[in-house]
Structures are given as structure tokens and as C-alpha cells.
């Protein structure tokens, strides 16, 4: 069920079945939580269907840690009562959604249907990567699956809500990026100056809610 291989000389890689799937995500989350309790582990990088585990080679070695992880009993059907559902208000109006119109043509779905579909799902935060605080959310409704932009933008605004492949995500900071931008949230999902810098964490659930540009501006001014 899991395959544990060495990764460099002080890490190991746990590979799950290689596909993007909610059930596998729950297994990843289960292993991540259990491994977090091991003293010899320095840090972990959970991804869609793998976990990179970096260990302190003064305290353990590949073989011992591998055996310890193989003995863990993880139930993928667990519901994880600690998982929070975070509602993210998104303005999908034109000035906040630079790719909505062209995407509508590409996937042959009118903009209102794109919004309805995008807000219809409660997404799992499968992993975080690319930028500090960038959540990879899945799974996107089939009708919305799309390609990346052929030329990435040099600057995408913080708060931009984007889709690519069968995933959706939110830009935590201004950054270059190639995903299709279909809306923007006034929330700061990453704020380094806040004690709780990260609004969203791996393992949470996210639901998008459509808001007007007036509400966007009010929320932005309130700094929420």
C-alpha cells in the first residue's frame, strides 16, 4: 500500500498510489499527523500522494525509521474531526477575474455556470507548496478542468483565485503564475505580520462563496 524509499542521506520518501484522489489525501494526512509525533523527524513535506520525511541522522537511520512508519496503523476512512471548513469570499466580477471570459470560450461553459460550479464543491486542501501559504485544492468539478495559460503572467495579485488541470488554488502573495484567474478574495490568506500567518493549512476544507464588488471593497477595507 505504501512504498518507502531513501531520499538523499537524511530523508525518506513515502509514496502512495500515484494519483490525485481524496481517499489517498486522507491517508497522507493520517500518516503526516502520526509522523509529526516522532522525535527523530525534523520536518515533513506532505504532497498529493507522497510525504517527504526529513530525519535527524544522529537519532535514527533510514531502515529504523522505515520500519517504524510501516508499523503505524492509519485508517483512511477516518473523518478527521479537527478538519476545519473555511469559507472564502470571492468576487468573480470582470475586474477581479481577468481570465474568466477567455476560459468560458475554451471550456465552452458560460461565466455564470463556471461560478456556480466553482462554488458548488467543498474542496480538500491536498497540499501546500509553490509559495508560502499556497493551497492546492481538489477536486475541481470535471466541467472546469482546463489548461494553464500558455504564457505565465509575470505578476499575479495576492488573493487571486485560480484554476488549472483539476485543481484550484489561491495566490497568497503577489507572484508570477500560469493558472487561469477566475476571481479574487479580499481575505489575506497569508499574512506574515499576523501571529496566525496562515489562514489555511494542509488538511483543512475550503468552500468558495460569490460576493459582489461592493462587498469585496468593504471586506478589503475592514482588513478581514
Amino acid at each position, binding site marked *: 500500500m505504501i512504498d518507502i*524509499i*531513501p*531520499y*538523499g*542521506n*537524511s*530523508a525518506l*520518501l513515502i*509514496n502512495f498510489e*500515484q*494519483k*490525485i484522489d481524496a481517499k489517498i489525501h486522507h491517508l497522507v494526512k493520517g500518516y*503526516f499527523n502520526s509522523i509529526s509525533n516522532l522525535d527523530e523527524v*525534523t*520536518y*515533513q*513535506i*506532505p*504532497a*498529493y*500522494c*507522497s*510525504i*517527504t520525511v*526529513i530525519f535527524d*541522522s544522529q537519532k535514527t537511520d533510514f531502515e529504523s525509521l522505515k520500519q517504524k512508519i510501516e508499523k503505524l496503523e492509519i485508517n483512511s476512512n477516518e473523518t478527521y474531526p479537527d478538519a476545519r471548513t473555511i469559507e472564502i469570499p470571492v468576487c468573480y466580477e470582470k475586474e477581479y477575474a481577468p481570465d474568466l471570459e477567455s476560459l468560458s470560450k475554451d471550456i465552452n461553459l458560460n461565466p455564470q455556470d463556471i461560478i456556480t460550479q466553482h462554488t458548488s464543491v467543498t474542496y480538500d486542501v491536498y*497540499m*501546500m*507548496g*509553490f*509559495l*508560502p*501559504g*499556497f493551497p*492546492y485544492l481538489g477536486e475541481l468539478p470535471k466541467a472546469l478542468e482546463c489548461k494553464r495559460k500558455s504564457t505565465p503572467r509575470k505578476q499575479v495579485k495576492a488573493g487571486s483565485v485560480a484554476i488549472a488541470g483539476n485543481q484550484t488554488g489561491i495566490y497568497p*502573495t*503577489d*507572484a508570477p503564475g500560469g493558472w487561469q484567474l477566475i476571481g479574487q478574495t479580499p481575505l489575506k490568506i*497569508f499574512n*506574515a*505580520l499576523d501571529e496566525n*500567518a*496562515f489562514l489555511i*493549512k*494542509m488538511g483543512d476544507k475550503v468552500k468558495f462563496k460569490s460576493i459582489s464588488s461592493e462587498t469585496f471593497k468593504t471586506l478589503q477595507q475592514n482588513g478581514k
Partner: protein
Amino acid sequence: MANDLTLTFLQAGLQTTLQDKGRAGLQYLGVPVGGALDITSAAMANHLVGNEKNVPVLEITMTGPEILFDSDALIALTGAPFELYCDDKLVENNTAIYLKSGSILKFGKLKSGCRAYLAVAGEWNAKKWKDSVSPLLQVPEATPDSIIKKGTKLKINSAFLNKTGSWDKNKHTPILSNRVRLRVKPGPEFDSISRIAIAKFFGQGHEISKDANRMGYRLTTNLTNPEDRSEMISSGIIPGTIQITGSGQPIILLKDAQTTGGYPRIANIINEDLDQLAQLKPGDEVWFSIA
């Protein structure tokens, strides 16, 4: 006896940052590890001035800064050797140096390597984010004191007079070359990479391209037909991971790299050779062999 010392940067240098050991534990949130790239040289700089090894140091890249010290100071420069001047007088690398109040430290020519480390005895008064001063590329406001610009002022509570007894004569002076062999372990996708690509990877030297920074080094080599399999699902990256892009170009990832990536990982440079990796610069040549 302690005194307050302010460093004023009259010139910033090419890329001068304040670094410590970085931050482990936030990688599940997408935060790179960060920290000084050549940790042995950084630790030695602190050791020479009597600091604990994880006290911040200035990481100086290829072109050095010019710094005014407004009070007496004890400093040491390690790592890549520079022509170093105190008030236009040549001073030594890899040794503790007293600077008198009002001294100006200037960096001349870089003799070899890429990164030097400047330690100053005492406690830095620099803002930390999540227990580290190491800057995050996309979030400069998190550690506003750590990215040095012309005019930056950094304060230090300089307590060096108590600690002069802790100097050691066992100097760490790295042997720096522009042609190195680094030891690697096969990476997670090693078996899925074509034999021709593997043969090219180990059978020739690779030049570090101009696209080289604290996130990663792109190599100029093209390993044709690098992979036989379709797109890979994003997975974790650690410092020293070598990926092969879709076009066949190897990229070595360093400490500021993003935490996940979707290219096959051909190999990982072993921890013991990461300091040497940090001293490579564009135009240098690297060879790989299995550890």
C-alpha cells in the same frame, strides 16, 4: 562589557542577506527551509568571534558590501576569500579582527568561491519571523532587517570584550575550486530516467548557468530524452535535489527553493557536499558521482 554598535551599509553588494540556520517545520505550509548555504563557513565565522554557531551572519555573494562601524567591533570573514580592506588597509580572511570605532570595511576582489560569511561578535537586533532571520523571497516584510540595501542600518549589542578567550586556532579554510565533484545518492525517479540521460549525467562535467541563485542552479547541459514516463505528480523537494526539466535540463535545488516540484528527481547531493555546492558560481563546472 557591552556596547551598542550600528553597522551602516554604504554599499550593499550584489546580494547580501542576514542568515542563520533557517526554519525547519513549516514546509507543510509551503515555506522553504532557508538559512546560510555554506553552514560550515557560517559556523566558523561565529566561532572565530566567540558567538554561538546559530547567531545570524551576513551572507555575501560575489560582490561585497561597504560597511561603516560606529563603535569598536570584533569581526571575522570566512567562506569564499575576498580581498578585504579596513580603512584601505588589507586585512586577513579566516581570522578574528578588531575594528576601531569609525572603521570602514570594504570588499575588493573575490578570489575564489561564491559566498563569504561575516560574523560580528555580539547579539544582532534583527527582526525574526518564525524563529529565524533568514529572508523569504516573496515576503520581504517578514524579516525587514535581513535583506541588505544601500543605507541599511543594523544594530548589534556587541559584547565581545568578555569572550576573546574562546578563539580557536583550528581554522576552517575551505579549498575552493571552479571545478568540483559532488557525491550524490540516486533520486526517487532515478529508475524511470533513460539510460542515455543517466550516462550523460555522470559521464561529463556540467556548467553552472547564469540562472543561479539561492533557489537553485540551472546547469547548461541538455540530457536528451530525459524521461520515459508521462507527467509526474508534484512531490517534496529538499536542498540538494537535482531535477530534470521536460526539456532535459538539470536543476540543482538549494535552500530557498519551493518545497514541492513536478519534475523527475534524478539524484540528491549528499549533505556533506552541500557546503561545496554553495560555493559554485556561474561558469563553474560540476561532476557527479554516486556516493
